[in-house]
C-alpha cells in the first residue's frame, strides 16, 4: 500500500472558531431589535380534530399582548409554498381542522417571551376530536382519509427499475420473477422498518422579521439553510420584488436538512411585523420543535433479493410505504425519490423499487441528513448481508462480486436509471479490507465467539448522490422555482480583490457548521496566492449574494465551491493582464506565488497584491479597454450530481443478559474525490456516522395510535452522547469527480448513509449464533434482549 496526496488545501484551523469558542457567535435568538415583540403559538393537543371555536378574548385583554392571529387573518396568504406541491399543502395556521398533534392553531404576539407564553395559555380552543391515522399500512388502505379533499392518502408512487422507462421496468420485473422460479437460486426477504427520526439541531429554529415602514422592505434573520429561498417565499407571499426582502442567516446552530425548508412561522412573523409595524421574533422551544420542524425517514418496507448460491445477485426488489406526515412542505414528496437515485447502490443487478408515499396524522417529514438515501441504502445493504449469510459467503465478497466494474466509469448507468459520475468501488473495498485488516478482524471475532462472547462484524458499502446539481434535475421537479428562484441548482461565487489587496468572497451557501469561511478562503488562496487570512468569506445574506441555493444535499463545495473557483480564475486572468502591463512582461509569464505576483524567471520583477489592486481601481493606469475594478462572479452548473462512495466496518459486542450494544471499533473508508480541508472532511464524516449510529441504536419518533408523539423531548428521544460513541477510524481513497473542476464530491451525508446498517449488520452478526436474523432499529437493549429471547424460542426468522 502506498500513500499519495490529493489535498487541495490542507488541514488549516477554521476561521469561524475564535468567535464561536468565546461565545461571541451571533445566532438569531441573540439578536434584539428596538421595539421587538415576541411570538408564541397555540398548538393542538389532538392529532385529528375539527376546530369548533377559538376564543382569544382573555389573551387579548392582557396588558402587553398585541395580537392573536388565527386562520381567518392569514388565509389569504396561504397555503405554505412547497417546491414539490404533491399532496396536501400546509395552511399557515390550522383552518377548521387540525391534522397532527402540535399543529399551530393561533399565533400570539406580545411584548415579552414570557408574556406571549402566558397569553397562549389564555386562548381557549374547542375541538371535536376525530379518529387519527398513524399506522402506515392503515393509511395506505384509505380506511380513514387524512384529507377529505384528496382521492387517497397515497399521494404519489415512485417506481423505478429503471426510472421513467416502463418497458425496461417490465423487463426488470420479468427477470427477477424468472430468477425466483429457478431452483438453483436463493430468495431472501425481510420486512424492515426505517423509523422516523427527529433531526434535533441543538439550536432550535428561530426567526426575527422586521418590516421597515417607509423603506417598504423586510429584513429577516432566520436560522435557515436556504436564505434565498426564504427571501423568495416572502417576496412571493407578500407580492414584493425580490430586492425588497433581505434575509440573513447568521450563525446557524446545526441544520441537518431540518432547516432546509421555508416554515409557516417564518411567513407568520413576517406578516405580524408588517401588520404591527414592529420587529417580531419567534424562537421554538425544544418541546415544540418536533411538532413544528420537520421530521425525517419513516419507511416500512420489504426487501427481497434473489441470487445464485455462489453470490451472483440476479435481482433486488424493495416495496415500501413512506410516511409524509399530514402535509407536504418543501421537498416532502421528493425525499423518497432521492432514495430511488441510489436504490441499486453500487451494484449492477436488476433492481425494482416501488415507494408509496402516504399522508398520516403526524408531523410532516422532509429532508433529514441523507434524506431518502440512508433509507434506500439501509434496505439494500441489510438484505445483502442476509443473502451472504444464507449462502455462507463473506459479505465483503458478495458485494465485490456484484459491483458495477471500474471500467464502466465515468458515466456508468445504475440499474435504477441514473448515470454515475466516477467510481472505483473495488479499489475502495480493497483499501478498507486491507487497511483495517478484515481477515484479522474476522479472526478476532471468531476468537471472541469461541470464548462465549457475542462479538459481531458489520460491513456496508454505500453510494450516495449529492452535489445538486445539474440543471437537468429540474425535469424531475428538483428546483426552487416555486419560490421564484432561478430554477436550477446552480452555485454562485463572487470574488473581489479590494483596493488594499485583501479579498472578499461572497457565496450563495447557507452553512450551519461546515466551515465554508475556511474552505472557500483555501479555494481562492490556492488560485490567487493571496494568504487565507487576507480573504474574508461571507455567506447567507441575500443582500450580498446575487443568487444562492443554500447548503443541503452535500452540495456546497461541488457547486458553489466550483463557482468560486471559476470566479477566482477570472480574477486571476484580469490580474495577470494588469500585472503584465505594469511589469512589462507577457501575460503567460506572470506567476502568482508566495502571496505576491512576479515574472517567471525574474523574481525581482514583482508586485504585491496591494500594488496591483490599487492600480486596478484606477482605470487611467490600466491597459486600454480593460476597465476598472477587480472582481468576478460565476454561476456554475455541474455536469452531473456527484456520487461519493465507501465502505464502513463496525465491530460490536452484545451483552446477551442485558441486550446492551457496545461499539468496539468503527472504521470508515470513504471516497469523496479530491479533498480541500481533510480536517473539515473528517469532521463531517464523524458527525454523519454519529447520526447514523443514533438511528441504529437510540433514536425513534414514536407516535401512539391516537397520534400523540411519545418522544417529544430529549428525555424521551435519546441522542447519542459522548459516552455512547467510540473513536472513529477514518481513511479515504480518492476518485476525483468529473462533474466539477475541483474534482470534489459531497461528504456531509455520507457517514449517515453508511453507518446505520453497518451497526445493525454487526449486531445481527454477533447474534447470528443465537438464531437472530434481524432486529428493527433502534437496537435499544430491551429490543435486542427480546430478539434474543424470541430467537431462542424459535420466534425470530
Amino acid at each position: 500500500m502506498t500513500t499519495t496526496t490529493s489535498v487541495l488545501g490542507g488541514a488549516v484551523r477554521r476561521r469561524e472558531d475564535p468567535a464561536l469558542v468565546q461565545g461571541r457567535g451571533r445566532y438569531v435568538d441573540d439578536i434584539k431589535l428596538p421595539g421587538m415583540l415576541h411570538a408564541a403559538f397555540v398548538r393542538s393537543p389532538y392529532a385529528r380534530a375539527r376546530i369548533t371555536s377559538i376564543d382569544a378574548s382573555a389573551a387579548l385583554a392582557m396588558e402587553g399582548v398585541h395580537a392573536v392571529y388565527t386562520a381567518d387573518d392569514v388565509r389569504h396568504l396561504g397555503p405554505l409554498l412547497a417546491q414539490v406541491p404533491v399532496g396536501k399543502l400546509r395552511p399557515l395556521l390550522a383552518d377548521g381542522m387540525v391534522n397532527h398533534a402540535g399543529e399551530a392553531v393561533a399565533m400570539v404576539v406580545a411584548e415579552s417571551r414570557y408574556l406571549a407564553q402566558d397569553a397562549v395559555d389564555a386562548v381557549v380552543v374547542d375541538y371535536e376530536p376525530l379518529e387519527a391515522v398513524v399506522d402506515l399500512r392503515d393509511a395506505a388502505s384509505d380506511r380513514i382519509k387524512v384529507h377529505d379533499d384528496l382521492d387517497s392518502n397515497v399521494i404519489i408512487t415512485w417506481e423505478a427499475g429503471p426510472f421513467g422507462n416502463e418497458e425496461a421496468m417490465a423487463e426488470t420485473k420479468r427477470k427477477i420473477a424468472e430468477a425466483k422460479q429457478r431452483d438453483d437460486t436463493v430468495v431472501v426477504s425481510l420486512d424492515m422498518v426505517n423509523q422516523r427520526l427527529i433531526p434535533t439541531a441543538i439550536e432550535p429554529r428561530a426567526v426575527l422579521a422586521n418590516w421597515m415602514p417607509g423603506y417598504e422592505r423586510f429584513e429577516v434573520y432566520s436560522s435557515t439553510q436556504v436564505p434565498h429561498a426564504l427571501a423568495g417565499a416572502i417576496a412571493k407571499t407578500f407580492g414584493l420584488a425580490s430586492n425588497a426582502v433581505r434575509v440573513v442567516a447568521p450563525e446557524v446552530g446545526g441544520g441537518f436538512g431540518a432547516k432546509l425548508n421555508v416554515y409557516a412561522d417564518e411567513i407568520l412573523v413576517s406578516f405580524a411585523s408588517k401588520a404591527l409595524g414592529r420587529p417580531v421574533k419567534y424562537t421554538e422551544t425544544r418541546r415544540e420543535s418536533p411538532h413544528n420542524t420537520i421530521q425525517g425517514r419513516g419507511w416500512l418496507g420489504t426487501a427481497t433479493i434473489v441470487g445464485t448460491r455462489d453470490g451472483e445477485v440476479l435481482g433486488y426488489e424493495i416495496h415500501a410505504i413512506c410516511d409524509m406526515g399530514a402535509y407536504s412542505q418543501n421537498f416532502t414528496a421528493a425525499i423518497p425519490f432521492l432514495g430511488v437515485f441510489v436504490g441499486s447502490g453500487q451494484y449492477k443487478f436488476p433492481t425494482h423499487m416501488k415507494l408509496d408515499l402516504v399522508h398520516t396524522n403526524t408531523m410532516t417529514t422532509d429532508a433529514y441528513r441523507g434524506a431518502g438515501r440512508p433509507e434506500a441504502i439501509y434496505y439494500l445493504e441489510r438484505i445483502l448481508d442476509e443473502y451472504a449469510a444464507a449462502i455462507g459467503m463473506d459479505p465483503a465478497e458478495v458485494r465485490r462480486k456484484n459491483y458495477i466494474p471500474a471500467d464502466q466509469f465515468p458515466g456508468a448507468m445504475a440499474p435504477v436509471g441514473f448515470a454515475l459520475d466516477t467510481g472505483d468501488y473495488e479499489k475502495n473495498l480493497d483499501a478498507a479490507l486491507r487497511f483495517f485488516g478484515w481477515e484479522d478482524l474476522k479472526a478476532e471475532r471468531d476468537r471472541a465467539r469461541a470464548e462465549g462472547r457475542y462479538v459481531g462484524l458489520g460491513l456496508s458499502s454505500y453510494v450516495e448522490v449529492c452535489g445538486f446539481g445539474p440543471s437537468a434535475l429540474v425535469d424531475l421537479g428538483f428546483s426552487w422555482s416555486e419560490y421564484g428562484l432561478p430554477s436550477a441548482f446552480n452555485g454562485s461565487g463572487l470574488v473581489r480583490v479590494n483596493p488594499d489587496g485583501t479579498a472578499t468572497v461572497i457565496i450563495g451557501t447557507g452553512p450551519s457548521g461546515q466551515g465554508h469561511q475556511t474552505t472557500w478562503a483555501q479555494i481562492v488562496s490556492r488560485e490567487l496566492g493571496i494568504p487565507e487570512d487576507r480573504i474574508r468569506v461571507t455567506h447567507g445574506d441575500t443582500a450580498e449574494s446575487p443568487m444562492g441555493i443554500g447548503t443541503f444535499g452535500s452540495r456546497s463545495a461541488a457547486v458553489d465551491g466550483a463557482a468560486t473557483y471559476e470566479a477566482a480564475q477570472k480574477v486571476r486572468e484580469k490580474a495577470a493582464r494588469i500585472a503584465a502591463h505594469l511589469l512589462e512582461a507577457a501575460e503567460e509569464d506572470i506567476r502568482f506565488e508566495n502571496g505576491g505576483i512576479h515574472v517567471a524567471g525574474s523574481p525581482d520583477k514583482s508586485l504585491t497584491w496591494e500594488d496591483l489592486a490599487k492600480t486596478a481601481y484606477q482605470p487611467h493606469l490600466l491597459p486600454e479597454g480593460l476597465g476598472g475594478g477587480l472582481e468576478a462572479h460565476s454561476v456554475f452548473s455541474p455536469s452531473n450530481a456527484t456520487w461519493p462512495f465507501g465502505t464502513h466496518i463496525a465491530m460490536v459486542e452484545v451483552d446477551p443478559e442485558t441486550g446492551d450494544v457496545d461499539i468496539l471499533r468503527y472504521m470508515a473508508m470513504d471516497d469523496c474525490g479530491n479533498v480541500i480541508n481533510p480536517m473539515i472532511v473528517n469532521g463531517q464524516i464523524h458527525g454523519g456516522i454519529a447520526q447514523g449510529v443514533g438511528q441504529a441504536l437510540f433514536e425513534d419518533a414514536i407516535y401512539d395510535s391516537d397520534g400523540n408523539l411519545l418522544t417529544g423531548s430529549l428525555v424521551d428521544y435519546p441522542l447519542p452522547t459522548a459516552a455512547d460513541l467510540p473513536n472513529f477510524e477514518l481513511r479515504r481513497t480518492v476518485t476525483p469527480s468529473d462533474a466539477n473542476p475541483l474534482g470534489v464530491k459531497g461528504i456531509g451525508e455520507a457517514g449517515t448513509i453508511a453507518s446505520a446498517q453497518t451497526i445493525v449488520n454487526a449486531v445481527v452478526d454477533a447474534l447470528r449464533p443465537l438464531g437472530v436474523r434481524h432486529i428493527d432499529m433502534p437496537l435499544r437493549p430491551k429490543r435486542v434482549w427480546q430478539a434474543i429471547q424470541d430467537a431462542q424460542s424459535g420466534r425470530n426468522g
Partner: protein
Amino acid sequence: MKISLTINGREVSADVEPRTLLVHFLREDQGLTGTHIGCETSYCGACTVLVDGKTVKSCTMFAVQADGASITTVEGLADNGQLHPVQEGFWERHGLQCGYCTPGMIMSAVGLLQEKQSPSEDEIRHAIEGNLCRCTGYHNIVRAIEYAAAKMRGEEPPPPDWEEEEVSV
C-alpha cells in the same frame, strides 16, 4: 425580587421576576448571549455555566437562586484576548462545527479539568455526557479536551489524528 451576584468578575445587581430563568437573565438582561438554550429539560447542556466553580445548567435554575453567587460564562474564560486552553483546544482540534453546543461543552470541560488534571478518555466522555453535540460525533471534542488537559499540565499536546493522505492499493 432584587438580587446581587458576580458575573465574570463583575458585580451585578438586578430586579428580576421570580420565575426568570438564570439563562434568560444572562442572555436577555445581561446581554451574555454566549450561553445558549437547546432544550428546557437540562438534557442538552448548551446552557452550562459555572456557579461558584461548579457546572450548572442555567435553563433549570432561577435567577433568584443565583443571588450572592459567582458565575462564570463562556465570555469570562478568555484572559485579555488570550484564549483559555480549553477554547484553544476546541479551535486546534476542530472540536466544534456549528458552535451552538460549544459554550456549554467548553464550560463542562473547564469544570472537569478543574477537578482532574489528567482525565482518561473514558472520564472525559462521561464528564461531557450531559452535553449534547449533534455535529461532531464527539470524536474531536474529546481530542480538544485532551489537548487542553496537556496544555494545562504544561505538556506538549498530542498531535492531531486527521490524515492528509489517501490510501491506495
